[in-house]
């Protein structure tokens, strides 16, 4: 055991013995999955509370003090509801769809570094950003498959809208990320955070940051980009036919995605675990996670805030925004960054 601690504290992750690496990944992964799922449950409560405050309402307050037991009640309710499988659906795809969304959302968190020590990231992949992009594109399949397999018109419309949305936003999202990658000189999220030790990328990449945040909200299919499930238009969109825990997986998947995307924004543009100042009396190993969680908390609030404020986009407007404005701007941002790096080679990670 002593050896284990010694190894994972001193050696870089690539040089760990496979067994140690597996043990570390399993333990941290387990902690993160557990924390993430309960966080997602409480995020539902938080969202309802924050929305209620913004809308002159009280919000859930019946279950436990301040409604704190509401997530438990919700989970119990969803677990005990009838899990109906409509006769007209494509059975296997119908069941697979909600699993995919949870899987991709949770897996992406493996590459996010939580703090300075090596062992605070589940797996420091050297293609971390690519891994995140790949999984987030896969996540859309869940929506499309749900819409397709439901064999219902509203669900099909929802699935189609999700596809249109994905192709409009994946490009500008990855293009704005690419500029950050160029600054850091690495695809590894850990390296990107390290490159921000003196200057956060939000200052070097203001345009990229804005484009990325907008794309990320669109990726997460939340208001004002909640077209695939626009209730006034297409009832519940892709999950119209889902009930019970399968519906809950979509629901939780959305909130896990919110957490994940907040982590990614904070990591890539806001310096990740780097703080603005040292917090007194707190060990350095915990200080990183605290700063990171604070940033993540702000972005989660930001997501809810946006939802309370904006009306929904129409899907041709969304495509227009994506193709006519965001993609050209992100290309521009990429070129500007390249010029910047050539002029000032010491910027970012290019030491």
């Amino acid at each position: 055991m002593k050896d284990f601690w010694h190894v994972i504290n001193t050696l870089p992750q690539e040089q760990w013995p496979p067994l140690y690496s597996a043990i570390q990944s399993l333990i941290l992964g387990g902690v993160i999955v557990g924390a993430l799922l309960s966080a997602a449950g409480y995020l539902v409560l938080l969202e309802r509370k924050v929305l209620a405050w913004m809308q002159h309402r009280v919000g859930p307050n019946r279950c436990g003090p301040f409604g704190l037991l509401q997530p438990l009640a919700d989970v119990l309710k969803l677990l005990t509801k009838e899990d109906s499988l409509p006769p007209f659906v494509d059975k296997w795809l119908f069941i697979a769809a909600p699993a995919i969304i949870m899987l991709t959302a949770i897996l992406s968190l493996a590459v996010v570094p939580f703090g300075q020590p090596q062992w605070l990231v589940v797996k420091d992949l050297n293609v971390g950003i690519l891994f995140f992009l790949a999984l987030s594109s896969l996540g859309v399949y869940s929506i499309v498959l749900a819409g397709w397999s439901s064999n219902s018109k509203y669900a099909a419309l929802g699935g189609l809208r999700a596809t249109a949305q994905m192709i409009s936003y994946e490009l500008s999202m990855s293009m704005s990320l690419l500029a950050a990658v160029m600054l850091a000189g690495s695809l590894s999220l850990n390296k990107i955070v390290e490159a921000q030790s003196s200057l956060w990328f939000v200052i070097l990449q203001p345009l990229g940051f804005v484009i990325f945040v907008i794309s990320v909200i669109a990726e997460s299919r939340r208001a004002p980009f909640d077209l695939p499930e626009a209730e006034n238009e297409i009832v519940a969109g892709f999950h119209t036919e889902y009930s019970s825990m399968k519906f809950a997986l979509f629901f939780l998947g959305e909130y896990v995605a919110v957490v994940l995307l907040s982590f990614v924004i904070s990591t890539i543009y806001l310096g990740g675990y780097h703080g603005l100042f040292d917090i007194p009396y707190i060990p350095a190993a915990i200080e990183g996670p605290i700063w990171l969680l604070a940033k993540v908390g702000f972005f989660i609030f930001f997501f809810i805030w946006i939802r309370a404020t904006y009306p929904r986009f129409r899907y041709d407007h969304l495509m227009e925004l994506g193709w006519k404005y965001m993609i050209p701007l992100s290309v521009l941002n990429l070129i500007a960054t390249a010029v910047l790096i050539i002029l000032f080679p010491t910027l970012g990670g290019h030491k």
Partner: protein
Amino acid sequence: MKFSRSVEKPVWESGTTNSLKGDRGIQGVNDVYWVKQDEAYDKIQALKNDPQRPFPTLFDIVAIDESERQNRPAGQDHRYTLQYLLWNPDRGSDKVLVKVPLEGNDPKIKSITPLFKNADWYEREVYDMMGVTFEGHHNMRRILMPDWWQGHPLRKDHPNRATEMPPLTISEEDLAEYDGWEMLSSGDSYIRRKDEDGNELMILNLGPNHPGTHGVLRIMLTLNGEYMEDVYPVIGYHHRGAEKMAERQTFHSYIPYCDRIDYLGGTTNELPYVLACEQLAGIKVPERATVMRVMLAEIYRLCNHLVWFGTFGHDVGAMTPVFYTFRERENLFKIIEMITGGRMHPNFLRIGGCSMDLPVGWQEPIKLFLKDFDAHVHEYDNLLVQNPIFKTRTRDVGKMSLADCYEWGVTGPNLRASGSKFDLRKVAPYCGYEGYEFEVVSHTDGDCCARATVRLGEMIQSARIIRQCIDLMPEGEVMSRDNRYAFPPRKAETMMDIETLINHFLAVGWGLDMPVGESFVMIEQPKGNSGYYVVSDGRTSPYRLRIRTPSFAHMQTLPALSRGHLLSDLLAVIGAMDFVLADIDR
């Protein structure tokens, strides 16, 4: 009154006096023409295109079953009277009634749909309710009742109550016929299954249970991608037979039913009805009651527009405005509850005045509410209408030109959003609206965004009128003292003399025999212009009551407004239209 059946002369120009005792003739329209069945089309065409005095709008088509009428002018023995109410909003709300006597049990008459687009639904309704067939109509089907309904409900020989009819059963064959795809029935002939190139189109039944349709409205759509090729609204799911009910209720006991026509409109529904009854009976309403009516009408206009604003925001995907406006509306309801005792259905107006006087200290809560209201309206404007996403979603969506508005019988804020300055409160004032200072809010774009802007402006003007009502409120009675038809009679005086006691006993226990006559009143409701046509046969209950509602006319324009747009725009159009299903189906 003697009617000259085939001549065009207005009734009062015929120079004869009332032949029937207490017959008050036809009140509330400028001219009445009696026209023969086969000349009706030409007459209406001539009226529409009259160079001196054109009537560009068809306001309503009413059919009256005359078979049980007791007090008819000598020589009249036709079965139905079909009447077209034509209207010119530009010339001070000039109204003319074309009456066509129809013989036989199942009469036929030429359709006027080539003349007026909005005759479509009105003729279907007459066919549905009275069984008058319009020849040349492109879709002569039932509109409010289900297709399998037997008989025509507003005929006098149709039972009034379900208990007078055999229990409703649907046979297996019928069930099979209306199952699955055949549920499309009512729009079957209308909805295309393939486009011009032979590609199959997707048919989507939006509703009757759908979170975006504000009630039991069903819209059949054919979609090409998300573009709507055909739009076919199916109504009637909320039909309660309000007009038939009037024939069983006394004039007075029908007032609560009025509340339920446009259930967001409160007293603004009662107002045209009691005004029509008062016009029929010749009652002069005390000044205080009139000002109270105006105040309540404007408070309800605020209520209506607040609900509309919140739900419109929700329709375009903004979830917050609805909570702000409902908070505001709740405060208004507290005021209404203080004055009337009710909230959405106050049942407050009476024929001859109001049911009770204002409570002590009524001004304070209203002043308190109005203090910040204008600021709140600006807040709503900033929150939703000024939002760039909202603007892109509502600009150039659901556009309607002023000429089309006249053609379709669009009224109220929707008409004013298309560039008209027409407001009945200004053009043909009732209840002393000429004495109040307010502006008619108008916009020229004619799209959904303009409709939102107009209604927000109207809210500020309504608040202005309420402020003036508080200042103007005269002292005095709230119930007319000098008319035997004013209801309810004074309880306090019943113990003083036997005449009042008998009058009170008869009025309350039996109902009052209203004078014979017909009376029409239209007012500016929050949603548009609503008109009540009361036919009295000298009995305690209306012989026929026709309710013309704005939502019915507006819903009819839905295909014209939304065809070719995206599915998301349909919701924006519906939201901006401001309708209530109860108001459409009655």
